[in-house]
């Protein structure tokens, strides 16, 4: 007697908890917190270095902010938990409503009845697909000049940049960046094609995106008139003789069409290599000992070495991405939209018809 009473009590509590978790008050609470989290995540700059937050917000506020993970809201454990609870809420409420919707549908054959149910299903699947994408998506970055071949990170694929072309309009604005690519897998199969902005190349489960570009330069290093090293570096990179690692040339910036602007600063008059100059710095034991511009081909003599920057070339930066969950996300979005159309536009029409037929419309 006593035992079954307790059991009833317990199932009563479980039932109450389940009802709460599947109920709308719980959804409202979750949605409002998620909303506030989104607002915080959009107003507070995300993903900066920790010192940034201490500088911008002070020691206490900055510390609090980092402690609460407000510097990376959308990847924080508590945001994930909120999303998880919303999913739980959606699952429970969909399960509990399924029977009722089905029964009503059997009676009336109104497809509109499925509208809100499908909307929630689509949303649930969309959240799950997005979350799966966060864990499953992979990204590899490669940059190089036309003619170069390199391994694509950990994918086992090789990427050859066959060509790279920047098409300019008459006013020198960029019309398109286009890279000709060949991707080779471990078995030696290849896929070739073009990747341009808004038109990625698909190969072996990855999409290859033309991301950005810059200038690279060959550097020949001579010692006593002998060539000791040839290297290709991009603007922002270093090179130096292997025997004297303390000595380095830093390729600062490239001016394809060098000139001075109205304030006397270095500038490039056009993006075309009409009058190319490189801005470089020479470092010795970590400190800058000289900085200057040089024409390609002119020697830069220092510490018995001679650096020659030559043949400046545009390089392209290619990003390869894969998100195995993206098709699921697309399908979920389609379900969500279909659900909305049913909920808003199939149902009222039927309600109207029901009213016109004179039957007592059973309102929700």
């Amino acid at each position, binding site marked *: 007697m006593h035992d079954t009473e307790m059991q009833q009590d317990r199932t009563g509590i479980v039932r109450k908890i389940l009802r709460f978790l599947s109920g*709308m008050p719980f*959804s*409202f609470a979750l*949605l*409002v917190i*998620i*909303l506030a989290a*989104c*607002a915080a*995540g*959009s*107003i507070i*700059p*995300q993903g900066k270095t920790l010192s940034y937050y201490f500088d*911008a917000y002070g020691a206490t506020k900055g510390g609090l902010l980092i402690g609460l993970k407000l510097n990376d809201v*959308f990847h924080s454990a508590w945001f994930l938990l909120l999303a998880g609870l919303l999913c739980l809420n959606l699952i429970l409420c969909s399960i509990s409503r399924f029977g009722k919707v089905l029964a009503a549908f059997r009676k009336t054959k109104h497809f509109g009845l499925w509208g809100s149910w499908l909307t929630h299903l689509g949303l649930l699947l969309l959240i799950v697909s*997005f979350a799966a994408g966060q864990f499953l*998506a992979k*990204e590899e970055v490669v940059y190089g000049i036309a003619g170069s071949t390199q391994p694509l990170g950990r994918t086992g694929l090789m990427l050859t940049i066959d060509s790279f072309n920047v098409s300019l*309009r008459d*006013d020198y*604005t*960029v*019309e*398109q*960046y286009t890279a000709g690519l060949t991707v080779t897998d471990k078995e030696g199969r290849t896929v070739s094609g073009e990747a*341009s*902005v*808004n*038109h*990625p190349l698909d190969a072996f489960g990855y*999409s290859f*995106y033309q991301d950005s570009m810059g200038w690279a330069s060959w550097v020949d290093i001579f010692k006593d008139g002998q060539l000791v090293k040839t290297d290709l570096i991009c603007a922002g990179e270093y090179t130096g003789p292997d025997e004297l690692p303390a000595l380095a040339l830093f390729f600062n910036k490239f001016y394809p069409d060098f000139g001075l602007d109205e304030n006397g600063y270095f500038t490039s008059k056009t993006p075309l290599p009409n009058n190319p100059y490189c801005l470089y710095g020479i470092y010795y034991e970590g400190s800058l000992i000289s900085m200057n511009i040089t024409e390609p081909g002119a020697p830069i003599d220092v510490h018995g070495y001679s650096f020659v920057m030559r043949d400046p070339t545009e390089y392209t930066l290619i*990003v390869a*991405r894969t*998100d195995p969950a*993206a098709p699921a*996300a*697309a399908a979920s*979005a389609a379900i*969500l*939209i279909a659900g*909305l*159309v049913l909920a*808003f536009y199939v149902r009222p029409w039927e309600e109207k018809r029901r009213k016109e037929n004179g039957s007592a419309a059973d309102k*929700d």
Partner: protein
Amino acid sequence: MDQLLTKTENISFMAALVAYLVTAAAYFFYAVAKKEWARKAAYGLMCLAFGLQTVSIVVRGFHAGRLPLTNQYEFANAFAWGIALCFLIFVRKYKFDVLGTFIAPVIFLIIGYASMQSREIHELMPALQSSWLGFHVSMAIIGYGAFGVAFGVALAFLIRDTFPGSLAGIPNNETLDRIIYRAVALGFLFLTLCMVTGAIWAKKAWGTYWNWDPKETWSLITWLIYAIFLHLRLRKGMTGRKAAIFAVAGFLCVIFTYVGVNTLIAGLHSYK
């Protein structure tokens, strides 16, 4: 030819700007004087302004050789156009002209904002050369237009609720309430489509469909607010004053997503 097109666009745009201002005044007069001829005049003016604005958009699209939906000016102009379009549809359907008293000033403010932006036609950078962008922005225009109408109706509701008998020829509360709901539902569907087409475009251009950038995040916030509205209404029977206040808040959020995110949040970052 170029000059002619620029001139036509400028003249029709400025004329539309002025016409919307006059329309707003005419609707205000109608709301106060409650004369039938004033209603007809205001409606005629609204149609004229809408026509002129349509000309300016079409001419610009023809001139640029693309959908004119890519920079601040073009989008603000289209945004105002979308609200005017939704308004004209709703007025015809619900015979609810006083709504113009609230909608016309909103349209005027937005087209006024457009008039402060540069009207120069620029060629598009590669990332913007996508037909998904066209879909994306078109969906936004319809969605925002519908939310704008809900906002106007909600204002009318709140004013009449506060000052009974103040507005002429305005439908009963139940009808207003239904219009607000229908407009929000339409807006919600198109906001959803806007976000989905935007995600597809982002995937094509950058390889990830959702990046939590402030604009995306604020459109999600807007979406959640309207989702809460729909549920409160459906399940908790939220109608009348509360629903109207929600519709106003939702639209403020729309405006913030559109203008505020660019200016305020970007500004916050750059000042720090």
